[in-house]
């Protein structure tokens, strides 16, 4: 693994400057390091400089105005252990607990996961179902981007030079569910995953799938079919079937396209049932 210079800025301005000022190898931001360090070992990333975000004031969990804002460098473990988050965003906690292992989650962060935007990311589908927004800071100022637009494809996000993700904002709490299909239940990557959420203010469902190249996506068709409240079993069945048809799965060595389509239908139906059963679902 090639050597690099590690910089540990104390302020956001220093961080942005450090990301901009760099030689031919470029600079990478370091949050939890669980993706970056693997990439460094694989030779996928060869930055000249690594900018640690650990001193920045972003290890936060904020409920201002009833909206949850999670600082981008908050370790996932802190997020999953917050009882308010578990109550108001059950799908989010289910997804966080699906990531790697407890030890990994002591370091891994929401921001890092979003920027890495892996096709099988466990967090991105849930974030999509919650209409999460990404707060960015940059040399040209701050901006807020819906996650769905922020992520372009695997390892490609809408981050301009010198920009950093400061936080992820959840506009409203939603009854939600995250279900996955994997080879083994722990410490694994999902072949197929679904995130369902119901917006109590918008009276609308969100259906997102993971394990889809090049990135997890929202499925508008099944979401529309599910309607504006609690759908009956026949509606759920049709929405699940439609999800199986709409989701852009492919065959890879982890699973075939056929299997994924079949499985995603089963998971959508179950996830709807799980959402309907959450105490927070509007009656």
């Amino acid at each position, binding site marked *: 693994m090639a050597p690099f210079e590690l910089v540990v800025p104390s302020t956001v301005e220093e961080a942005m400057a450090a990301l901009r000022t760099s030689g031919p190898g470029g600079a990478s931001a370091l949050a939890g390091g669980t993706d970056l360090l693997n990439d460094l070992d694989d030779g996928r990333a060869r930055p000249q400089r690594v900018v640690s975000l650990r001193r920045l004031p972003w290890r936060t969990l904020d409920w201002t105005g009833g909206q949850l804002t999670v600082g981008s460098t908050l370790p996932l473990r802190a997020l999953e252990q917050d009882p308010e988050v578990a109550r108001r965003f059950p799908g989010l906690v289910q997804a966080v607990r699906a990531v790697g292992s407890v030890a990994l989650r002591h370091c891994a962060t929401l921001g890092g996961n979003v920027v890495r935007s892996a096709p099988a990311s466990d967090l991105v589908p849930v974030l999509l179902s919650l209409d999460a927004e990404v707060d960015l800071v940059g040399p040209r100022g701050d901006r807020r981007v819906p996650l769905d637009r922020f992520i372009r494809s695997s390892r490609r996000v809408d981050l301009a030079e010198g920009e950093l993700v400061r936080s992820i904002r959840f506009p409203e709490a939603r009854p939600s569910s995250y279900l996955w299909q994997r*080879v*083994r239940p*722990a410490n694994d990557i999902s072949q197929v995953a679904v995130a369902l959420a119901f917006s109590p203010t918008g009276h609308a469902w969100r259906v997102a799938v993971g394990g889809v190249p090049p990135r997890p996506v929202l499925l508008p068709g099944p979401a529309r079919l599910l309607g504006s409240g609690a759908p009956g079993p026949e509606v759920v069945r049709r929405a699940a079937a439609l999800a199986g048809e709409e989701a852009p799965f492919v065959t890879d*060595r*982890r699973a*075939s396209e056929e299997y994924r389509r*079949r*499985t995603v239908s*089963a998971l959508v139906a179950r996830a709807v049932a799980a959402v309907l059963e959450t105490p927070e679902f509007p009656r």
Partner: protein
Amino acid sequence: MTTPTSRSRPDGEVKLHGAALYGTDLDVPGMLWGALVPSPVAHGTIRSIDLSAARALPGVTAVGAEDLDRLLPFGARDEERPLFPRGEVIYHHQPLAAVAAPTLAEAVRAAREVRVAVDPLPIVSDLESVFPEWPGSGAANSPHVAAHVHARHGDVEGEFSRADRVVQEVYRTASVHQVALEPHACLAEVQDGRWYVRTSTQTPFGVREDLAVLLGVPESSIVVRGTWVGGGFGGKGAPLLEPYALLLARASGRPVRLALGYREEFQLGRTTLPAVVRMETAVTGGRIRARRVRLLLDVGTSLPGRDFATGYSIGFLLGPYATATFEIEGYAVRTNKPPFGPHRAPLAPQCAFVVESHLDHVARESGEDPEEFRARHIWTEGDTTPLGQTVGPFGLGAALERARETAKRWRREAPPGHGVGVGVGFWSTSTGAGGEVRLRLTASEVVIEQGEREIGSGSVLVGLPAVAARSLGVPRERVRVDYSDTSTAPFDSGVFGSRTVGAMGRAIEEASLQLLAVLGKRLAGGAPATLREADGRLLAASGGHEAPVADLLTPEERTTGGMVAGGRHFGPPGTLDEHRVVDGTFYAYRDFTGAAHVAEVSVDRETGSVRVERYAAFHDIGVVIDPAAARAQVEGGVAMGLGTALTEEAIWSDAGELENAGLKDYRIPTLGEVPPVEVDFLEGFPGAGPFGAKGLGEPPMIPVPAAVALAVREACGAHATELPLSAERVARALKLL
């Protein structure tokens, strides 16, 4: 015999304080770090390998094929297994050269600086590319066939033509890796004509012997010292890195550490490769009349004539079932992968899966109860095996009875949607040549002087003292195990094949008898003594006399550290009925042990996911030497078997590259996937080991995939004919796709 309890391990303290040094921990001042230069293709002609750029880097030593004559006193000897290929590379990542440098980063960089020019050749990546159809006559002569075995007995054609019913099926099993948590690692030094290597290995003497051939150096100038081993499971038998580390040490004049990264561990591992089996069974009146088995086994680049797997494993495809009329034929097929190597119970779990699934299917097709049908044919003592061995005391029948009782009870208790399956398997213990030990008796303790390291199973640090304690009548706490390297230790073939307690145990018995005989003579000129312990001292008694051992030692013995007796055990080779062999070399099984397992599973009917809810294992163990260690072996073997059954599969691309090297994409079971395992041992069917013990290292793996597969079938009707039973395969078998 039931209720084995927990017991502290003698190596617990050192390991729980992080003080045990494994191969990966070896570290001496001035050592260099080694790295291998891997072939970039699976098959090709070598045009050039240029080490000059690597050698130009500061502190770098590089060795390649053209250096061997210079470095080795008599030149490289083994033409069939060249350390570095000269003409042709034959598998992906095959080492083409090796480098050493002061740090790992520099070694990796130096390896990258080696310029390799290889012209690609067509790649044989799997069985189907060699034999898209089943091999016809004459296929045995194909250059792609490393070995051909063929045996038959009885009027096979006649029985098939007369049978009420013939059932034919094809099964496929995947490649699985040992996945010891510790990758291969060693540290080598060459000084004053002595080739010294410390290594994580199951077979120090085997490594020495092999190194002598590979390096063309006399065994007497090679010293192998084993370290603590972080798991072996068959993968740390033959030398892998040691020759390269020694070459680099010789070339650089420095100690060289060479270890594999975890991806390399998969890429270079010698292990179980894919198999395709065709099973045909002729049934009349609820009885098997005849069987035909055809095996295509991918053996990677195993050399013709050096395939150990085909003739060894094919017998397991007939199972522990009385089969008078049969034909078995196996082809060891060469592909561009590393050579087939031993895994724990090589291919036996896969074979048991095939046999049990097939006979279960045959029974169902014939309208028979599947468990009853199989039970009807299980070997009993005195039966003749298909290849002509006589089955000795064999407890599988009794184990199967216990398993069936358990299965019946679980079926009553199980929620709807669950299924219960019973799978059996057998194993032939006592493989490998044999071993020696020395027992040293002092005033207060017995020391077992021997040449094996504890690889984890407890066979060395728990099993051997247990045998010595029992043979001599002293408490276990009075027995100590000493390890020394190949230059001074008594010879032993190695810790593999479930043979350690059996073979070394018998040697300990022999040495014990000698000690007791001598003590008896010294005491009363009579019968062999008995020993006991009192207040930390050992006392010997014979013919009404008793004395402290201290008083019975001669002055010379007191000076030299005690009374020493040697023991040796080399088991007799098995026998085959050669009349039944048409072609090739079969391995003669002996000292049979059996096991019957019960699995209860639930199957997700929509996704095909299988969850193992309950598990029980009944083992024909001969005699239990140490209950806690025996139980631990079964628990560990079952978990490993569950991996083979459900999640483990090494996937090779058409380019002969391993697609899922590494622990993220090759999945071994995690803690949450293994249910509690009820373990019970059946004693009373003695084997060839001390006090009638039978080996236990490998049998616990064997019936696992079978029991799980049959449970899955009962749970949801899915009849899977492939391993592993991934959710997708079960979904297909359920016709969901």
